[in-house]
């Protein structure tokens, strides 16, 4: 496996991981008003493969955030108990948006490295073409 192929593999794994993260974030955001929804979090792991000689990044298990669900006062809600409260989701939109911005930034960085490896290999091919 050439260095450029390694580089492209690793960058592609980074792109995949970041887009998986973004997907979970958008799930969280869209379920921000779902009663009883627990926000999902994912962890990134380095998956070293000695055979390929690279350390691509992989998405680990999805885990649920077990923070306290928000208590919302709305007596007219069908799920409301005797005191007029029901459990909403534990999604904090501000955290999700900040996380999404970070994911986007990392995604762009990976894309840049991918593009760079591609340019380097194409300039190598240019040498053959002359």
């Amino acid at each position, binding site marked *: *496996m*050439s*260095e*450029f*192929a*390694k*580089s*492209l593999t*690793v*960058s592609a*794994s*980074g792109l995949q*991981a*970041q887009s998986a*993260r973004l997907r979970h974030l958008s799930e969280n955001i869209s379920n921000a008003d779902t009663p009883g929804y627990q926000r999902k979090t994912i*962890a*990134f*792991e*380095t998956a070293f493969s*000695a*055979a*390929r*000689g*690279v*350390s*691509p*990044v992989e998405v680990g298990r999805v885990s649920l955030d077990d923070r306290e669900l928000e208590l919302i006062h709305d007596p007219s809600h069908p799920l409301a108990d005797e005191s007029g409260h029901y459990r909403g989701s534990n999604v904090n939109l501000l955290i999700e948006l900040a996380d999404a911005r*970070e*994911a986007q*930034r*990392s995604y762009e*960085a*990976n894309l*840049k*490295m*991918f593009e*760079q*490896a591609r*340019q*380097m290999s194409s*300039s*190598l091919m*240019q*040498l053959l073409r*002359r």
Partner: protein
Amino acid sequence: MFQNLAVFDTAYAMATHAGKKQALIAQNVANADTPGYVARDLPSFQDLYASRDGGGHMPRATRSGHLHGVADGSVASMVQKDRSFASPDGNTVSLETEMLRGTDAKRQHERALAIYGSALSVLRTSLGRQ
């Protein structure tokens, strides 16, 4: 004299080194959000070149075993010493620094290819071809 031209060897080693460096940077960028990941680096080509005859402890990128992917595991990467960008989860990758180093690797690669191409045209001219 024409059996083994040093300028081609050097240009080749330089391009290979730039490729390896770029792959390592891509790996760092892909793992920029992996908890506990420590950024890795290669010694600079200048240092490697300076230590080629001195028998120093520097790993060399100029041996045949270091060809593109021929001998995996020969990548003598080292851990980056700079921990000033360490985040609370133990990740020491700084995207900005990696971008800078990526551009550096790309320029080194282009320089090596330019040297190679120029030496090739000198050789062609000496053979009476254009």
